[in-house]
């Protein structure tokens, strides 16, 4: 009976995973925010259902109450985690949160099946605690602008940490890449990965010159060498690929890509000649059946598992994954294929690819070079790690002993991957903030130009006050945190940094009352005529709360003036935005204060608004 349940529930998993995997890619299609929100909710539903059924099957088979307890705690934990992300970081990428949770769920389920007491509880404890701890990471990344200045600190500390295994190291599975600190064992390679990418990004993010590039590559080569000496071939390969690709993107010169690849081939050949460990791995890869009970044991067992799982899998608890050595960490993919089937496993790969594309998009969206490189480095390291892990398990490439991110057992691996997700959320929010700044800047510039035409004297003062740069204006925007903070003090005041003049600009929006879309987030659409062409598709997302707060403070402000009809635009895609918002841009007024520049009076502003309504702001019908 149980066997039957296990087999049939498998078909449900496969069905759900296929849908989930498809939704990974459809989110990149342009669509309305409500559909987008629907996708997110569906994803969430599927993953909780998957989690529920899996633990149901596990309980039916083991009749162990620990399974039930673990399930309940996990389900609550995931719900809380998603809730916290949505409320602490309303601007975060919801799909990334979903992916993170789903991968962890798959990992927990497989580990509970392989060894509840040995693996699952410990892994959940570590992942649970640390996913709460890394909640501060996005905030930290967003705020800590000094991160880019640490440069050499990353390199030197990272290298030192990496080398610490030579002093307090431990050998596990032929690789000396663990350190023991009392009862805790760590894999420095996983943590140094982060500092390593920060190092490269901070070095090459500044104006790169040849000397700087060479210095950076020397340091990176040192990292790779240490890893090779520790017999951590997967790590060495990962670090190497990350460096040459980041170097290529930072310089735009193919010479680094090909030169690096050439150097890599030479280094690989040298390693092959000099390190027997490398030769063994290679020999096992080329013919695992030459020594199926000795060196090739792990590889052949993995292939048996994959082969006997087939397309649809043998059903959760129906396989024999424990026959594969190190199945919980490096070879978990084989266990997944055996029990959940190859279709499920391929969908899992597709989810990883979806995350990679998402990471890459964040890297492409963010303008700041430092964050751009960080985003790119993490996307490459993430996807390449998946490639090494999966490829090694299915004998596509020699096995390098790399974990499958968030699914494999391993505290260091899961902590560092969670941190990477946190950092990427931070970069995502930075990209979003930049985006928003641009919106405001453009809107401000439109107003600025117009005002200047009408009231040259005043605007000159305005311009002088801001050093002629429009960058300051965006802080008036109601949506950004800075804006609402300032707004709470005195309507919408300028950011303190740029408060050189008392001139004020008010831009606000109105929320459309649409009940079916009345979710927690809204969108701000501001543009002007030129921008409509140039920047079509730009938009920004705001939490409901932020908007409401901004609106309140606007209406309470004494400067409430006329209004200009706004318009809507097609949403942009993946922001996880929920609900559409109709925008009106409220009148912009400027006030004269002692010591400030001359400003426009209320009447002047009204004139301006009328004029602008016809000239600068497009109505939805025109669009």
């Amino acid at each position, binding site marked *: 009976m149980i066997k039957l349940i296990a087999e049939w529930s498998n078909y449900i998993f496969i069905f759900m995973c296929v849908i989930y995997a498809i939704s990974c890619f459809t989110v990149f299609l342009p669509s309305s925010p409500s559909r987008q929100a629907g996708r997110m909710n569906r994803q969430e539903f599927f993953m909780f259902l998957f989690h529920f059924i899996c633990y149901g099957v596990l309980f039916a088979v083991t009749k162990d109450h620990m399974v039930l307890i673990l399930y309940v705690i996990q389900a609550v934990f995931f719900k809380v985690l998603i809730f916290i992300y949505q409320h602490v970081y309303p601007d975060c990428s919801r799909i990334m949160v979903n992916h993170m949770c789903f991968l962890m769920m798959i990992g927990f389920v497989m580990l509970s099946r392989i060894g509840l007491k040995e693996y699952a509880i410990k892994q959940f404890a570590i992942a649970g605690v640390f996913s709460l701890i890394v909640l501060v990471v996005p905030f930290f990344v967003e705020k800590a602008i000094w991160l880019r200045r640490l440069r050499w600190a990353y390199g030197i500390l990272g290298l030192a940490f990496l080398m610490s295994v030579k002093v307090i190291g431990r050998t596990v599975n032929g690789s000396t890449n663990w350190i023991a600190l009392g009862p805790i064992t760590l894999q420095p390679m996983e943590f140094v990965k982060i500092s390593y990418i920060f190092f490269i990004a901070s070095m090459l993010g500044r*104006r790169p010159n*040849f000397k700087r*590039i060479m210095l950076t590559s020397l340091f990176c080569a040192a990292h790779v060498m240490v890893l090779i000496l520790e017999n951590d071939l997967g790590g060495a390969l990962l670090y190497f690929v990350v460096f040459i690709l980041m170097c290529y993107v930072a310089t735009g010169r193919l010479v680094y890509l090909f030169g690096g690849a050439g150097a890599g081939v030479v280094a690989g050949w040298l390693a092959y000649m000099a390190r027997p460990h490398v030769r063994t791995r290679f020999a096992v890869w080329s013919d695992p059946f030459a020594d199926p009970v000795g060196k090739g044991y792990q590889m052949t067992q993995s292939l048996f598992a994959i082969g006997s799982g087939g397309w649809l899998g043998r059903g959760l608890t129906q396989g024999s994954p424990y026959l594969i050595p190190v199945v919980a960490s490096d070879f978990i993919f084989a266990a997944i294929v055996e029990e959940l089937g190859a279709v499920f496993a*391929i969908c899992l790969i597709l989810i990883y690819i979806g995350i990679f594309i998402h990471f*890459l998009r964040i890297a492409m969206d963010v303008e700041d070079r430092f964050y751009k490189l960080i985003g790119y480095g993490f996307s490459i390291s993430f996807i390449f790690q998946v490639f090494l892990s999966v490829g090694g398990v299915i004998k596509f490439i020699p096995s390098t002993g790399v974990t499958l991110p968030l699914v494999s057992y391993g505290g260091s691996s899961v902590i560092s991957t969670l941190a990477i997700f946190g950092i990427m959320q931070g970069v995502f929010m930075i990209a979003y903030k930049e985006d928003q700044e*641009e919106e405001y800047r453009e809107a401000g510039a439109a107003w600025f130009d117009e005002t200047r035409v009408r009231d040259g004297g005043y605007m000159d003062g305005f311009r002088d006050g801001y050093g002629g*740069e*429009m960058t300051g204006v965006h802080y008036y925007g109601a949506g950004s945190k800075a804006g609402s903070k300032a707004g709470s003090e005195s309507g919408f005041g300028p950011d303190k940094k740029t408060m050189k003049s008392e001139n004020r600009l008010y831009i606000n929006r109105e929320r459309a009352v649409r009940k079916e879309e009345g979710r927690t987030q809204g969108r701000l659409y501001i543009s002007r005529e030129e921008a409509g062409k140039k920047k079509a598709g730009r938009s920004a997302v705001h939490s409901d709360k932020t908007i409401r707060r901004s609106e309140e403070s606007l209406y309470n402000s004494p400067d409430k003036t006329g209004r200009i009809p706004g318009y809507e635009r097609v949403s942009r895609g993946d922001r996880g935005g929920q609900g559409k918002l109709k925008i009106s841009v409220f009148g912009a007024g400027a006030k004269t204060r002692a010591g400030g520049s001359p400003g426009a009076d209320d009447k002047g502003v009204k004139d301006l608004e009328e004029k602008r309504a016809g000239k600068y702001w497009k109505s939805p019908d025109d669009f």
Partner: protein
Amino acid sequence: MTSRNPGDPADSPRRSDYPEAGQGKDTKDKSSSVFLRPWLLFTPRSDRKMRSNHNMLITMIPVMLLFGVLIAYLVQFLLFKAEKTVASPYNRRMAEAGKDVIRGDILTRDGVVLAHTDVDKENNEYRTYPEGSKYFHVVGYASRGMSGLELSQNFELLTPHQALSEKIEKEVFGGDKSRGNSVVTTLDSRIQKQAWKSMKDWGIKKGAVVALEPSTGRVLAMVSLPDYDPEDIDADWDQIIADEGSSVLLNRTVSGLYPPGSTYKTLVALEYLREHPDPGDFSYDCKDGSEVIASVKMSCYDGQETHGRIGFEEAYAESCNKAFASMAVDLNLSEFVKLNEEFLFNESIDFDLPVKKSRFKLTRQSSKSQIPQTAIGQGETEITPLHNALIMSAVANDGVLMKPYLIEKVVDSQGNTVKTTKPREYDTLMTGAEARKMQELTRAVVESGTASKLKDADYRACGKTGTADVKDKTPHSWFVGYAGRSEGESDIVVCVIAENSGSGSRVAVPIAGEIFDEYYSE
């Protein structure tokens, strides 16, 4: 921040508290060649030209390709390799499956049970082999490791194929263990029995017989001697292992490598035909004693036989070594090597049992003195009986080699067919015209040559004998031939090798004759 005109295009819209590239050296000297200023290649592009996003997208292409190939690899593994991999005796999963499943049967095509698992009242399982040692090598054994079809079909035998309702019934109400699928082989019990009996009757201690259908590739019989009763193998294991000389466990049909002797002349004759479309011009005067050809001393059978002045057909029919050696030294060596490669030498043959690669050592650079011995099948060439039968089956089937197979179909415990093997072409090895000429030659062997014992049969037999010299021992006796009811037809190919039994015509031909007789006795 300095005061700049906001309309100035050079004014970056970004705040620039962070240094940006853009004033690199390369922007100044756009006209100069990269060859004159190689360092330009290394100088990072200026900010506007860097196109980071573009480059990121470019690097996404290899990543996607890599994953495409990765998934394709997984898919092809599951489609084509998984079954064979899983059948490995090292797969402990199969042993575990054996706990829930009773091993299926192995049968001949005409329904004779070759292997069956009996279950007694205490639920102990015994694997029985009703036909005893006759099918020992091809069926194999399932204890003490595995071999033969028991090994290669392990996965099928342990896989129950049940209807859902039955499955539910079993799961809900419990019940007996389910039975694995049964494997129906292409073997024909009559032919197998006759082949085995003839070998025994002729007192052959070591040797092999392969019989197959040239038009489909179905293997009808596979006998390898010495044999053993598979039911005793467990008890006598240590003794069998200790006795290295007898090589009881070796399946000689697929793993025995023998010098092909004169049977190899078929390929020499074919190459000669290709280079000389009209072989009527060929003539050779076979005199007493030996002759030196390409600095090698050659003689015919026993060193005594003489054939006189003979043409091409007589040379083949009477198996004149000297004539073939002189024919071979003039062949285009590289074409000849290519021919051997086409005929599956040094290549693994795809079959339901693992087949050893036949060896052919001549290369395009080999010296002429190696050719005469090779041409008469001595030299360093070695061939498996199955391979030799396949070459003859290509001749018999008008040049088309069918893929040999042993598994007719897989049926479930209720007898419903799970899957069936369809005959498949392996390769076209010669043209129809070439095949017809080869058929004439092989017929001449029976009509007027070394296999004349088959001349008066009711069927039309063709073939080639061989006598493979072995150092200090009686030579191996070969016959590989086919038979049909009339000209241009072929129903069965038989390959016989009897180790250390004398000339081909004396031993192997009559054995093959008995098998043909049995085949046509219906």
